[in-house]
C-alpha cells in the first residue's frame, strides 16, 4: 500500500464517517417520525435534509457556557474523549480488501480498548459538571458500561476461537465459508445488546434518562461541546453496526455484482436502522433491572457460548 492510497483511505474514512454521523441525525428523526406516524423535519431543503446544517449553525452560535463551579480543564476535555475514542476504533475496521487504515494484528483488542476509553467521556463529563444530576448520570453510565464491556469482550471471543485471529481482516477472510452469524448467533445477540449499552442508546440510555435526570451526564453542556457528545453517540452507533457486520455478517463479502465497499455500507446501514427501530419501539428498563439482566443472564450466557464454541472447535479439529 503506497502513501497516496493510505492518505486517501484516512481522508475518505474521516469524510464518510463524520458525514454519516451528521446524516444519521436527520435519518433518525425522519425514521422515528415515520414509525410514529408523523412527518418529522421536512422543511429545510429537500426532504428536510438541511435540518442538520441548521442545527449545526445553531449549535455554533449558541453561548458556549462553562459553569463557574465546574472543573474547567476536565469539563472541556471530556467531550473530546468520546469522539476521539470512537474515531480511533474505526482505524482497525476493514471496509474492503484494501481499504483499512491500520491492518493491526490485535485489531479486535484495540477496538475493545478504545471502547473502554470511551467510558471516561461520560465519567469525566458528569464529574466535572459538578451537578447532582450529571453525577448520577455519570455513575450510572460508568457502572453500565463497565459491566456490559465484560461480556462484550467475552461474546467476541467466540469469533476469535472460530477464526483463530484477532486481526479483523483475517476474521472477515475466515468467513468466506460461511458467515459467523450461524455458529455464533448467541454471541451476536449478546454483542449487539452490549453494543447498545456501550453506546448508551435507548432502551439502555439510562445515563441520560431525560425523564429522571434532566439530561444526565451532559446536563451542563451547551453549544458545540454538547454537539460532540451528540455526534459521538451517532458515530458509536455506526461503529457498533460496522463491528457487527465485520464480525458476524461477513464484512465486505458478498455476491460479486456489487463492489465490496458497497456491501459493507449496505450491511452496516441495516444495523443502523435496527438501532433506530429499537429506539422507536422499546421502553427504558429500570437501572437495577439493567444490571441484573446483564450480570445474571447475559454474562453466564456468554461464558456458556464461549465454552461450547471452544469445545466444538476442539472436537472438530481432532
Amino acid at each position, binding site marked *: 500500500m503506497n502513501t497516496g492510497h493510505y492518505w486517501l483511505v484516512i481522508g475518505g474514512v474521516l469524510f464518510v464517517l463524520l458525514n454519516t454521523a451528521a446524516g444519521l441525525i436527520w435519518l433518525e428523526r425522519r425514521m422515528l417520525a415515520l414509525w410514529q406516524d408523523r412527518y418529522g423535519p421536512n422543511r429545510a431543503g429537500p426532504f428536510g435534509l438541511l435540518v442538520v446544517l441548521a442545527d449545526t449553525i445553531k449549535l455554533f452560535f449558541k453561548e458556549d457556557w462553562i459553569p463557574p463551579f465546574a*472543573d474547567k*480543564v*476536565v469539563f472541556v476535555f471530556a467531550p473530546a474523549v468520546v469522539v476521539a475514542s470512537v474515531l480511533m476504533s474505526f482505524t482497525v475496521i476493514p471496509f474492503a480488501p484494501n481499504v483499512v487504515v491500520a491492518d*493491526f*494484528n*490485535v485489531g479486535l*483488542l*484495540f477496538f*475493545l*480498548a478504545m471502547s*473502554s*476509553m470511551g*467510558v*471516561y467521556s461520560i*465519567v*469525566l463529563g*458528569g*464529574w466535572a459538571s459538578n451537578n447532582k444530576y450529571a*453525577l448520577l448520570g*455519570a*455513575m450510572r453510565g*460508568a*457502572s453500565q458500561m*463497565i459491566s456490559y*464491556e465484560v461480556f462484550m*469482550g467475552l461474546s467476541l471471543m467466540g469469533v476469535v476461537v472460530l477464526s483463530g485471529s*484477532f486481526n479483523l481482516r483475517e476474521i472477515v477472510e475466515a468467513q468466506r465459508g460461511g458467515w459467523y452469524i450461524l455458529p455464533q448467533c448467541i454471541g451476536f445477540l449478546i454483542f449487539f445488546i452490549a453494543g447498545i449499552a456501550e453506546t448508551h442508546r435507548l432502551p439502555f440510555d439510562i445515563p441520560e434518562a431525560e425523564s429522571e435526570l434532566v439530561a444526565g451526564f451532559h446536563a451542563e453542556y451547551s453549544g458545540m461541546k454538547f454537539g460532540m457528545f451528540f455526534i459521538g453517540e451517532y458515530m458509536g452507533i455506526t461503529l457498533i453496526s460496522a463491528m457487527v457486520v465485520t464480525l458476524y455478517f461477513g464484512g465486505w463479502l458478498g455476491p460479486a455484482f456489487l463492489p465490496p465497499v458497497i456491501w459493507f455500507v449496505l450491511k452496516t446501514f441495516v444495523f443502523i436502522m435496527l438501532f433506530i427501530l429499537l429506539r422507536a419501539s422499546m421502553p427504558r428498563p429500570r437501572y437495577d433491572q439493567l444490571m441484573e439482566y446483564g450480570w445474571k443472564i447475559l454474562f453466564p450466557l456468554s461464558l456458556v457460548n464461549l465454552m461450547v464454541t471452544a469445545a466444538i472447535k476442539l472436537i472438530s479439529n481432532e
Partner: protein
Amino acid sequence: MDLTFYIAAAIAVFSTVMVVTRFNIMHALLYLIVSLLSVAVIFYLYGAPFMAALEIIIYAGAIMVLIIFFVMMLNLGPETARQEKEWLRPGMWLLPALLCAVLLGELVYLIAQSKTPVTGITPVPPKEVGRSLFGPYILAVELSALLLMAGIVGAYHLGRQKKKILHRFFESNAS
C-alpha cells in the same frame, strides 16, 4: 522507533511525576491514566501488542474507571485539595525524594553496568502469550484464579443483604 520510545517514556515519567504532585485527586488519577497509556505504547513498540492492548483494556479501561467511580462517590471538592495542600508541605517531600534518588542512582548504575543492550525486537503474537501462560506458567494462572475466586466470595459475603422485613405481617413468612 527510538524517537517514539523516548517520547512515550518522557510522557510516562512526566505524567507519573504529575500523579504524585497533584493536590486534586481526580487530576492525579487522570495523569495516572495517561501514564498507563504511554506504558502501553512502550509495550507495543517493544513487540508485545497483546500486552499493550490488555494494559489499556484492564488497567486504563477497567481498574482506573472503578477507582474514579469511587472517588466520584466520595464527592471530594476544593476543600480536600486545600487540606491535601496543607498536609503535603515542601518539607514532607524531603525524605521520600531522598529514598527515591538512592533507588534511581542504583537503577542507573545497574543499567550502565549491564553489557547486554536491547537489540532486535521479536514480536510476541497473542498465540505465544496464550501458549506460555497455559504451558510453563499454568501454576501462576491457577493461583491468580484462586485469588480472584476468594475475592468473588468475599465480595458476595460483603454485598449480601439481609432480607428486610417492612411489616410485621411478613415476619412469619420471611424467616
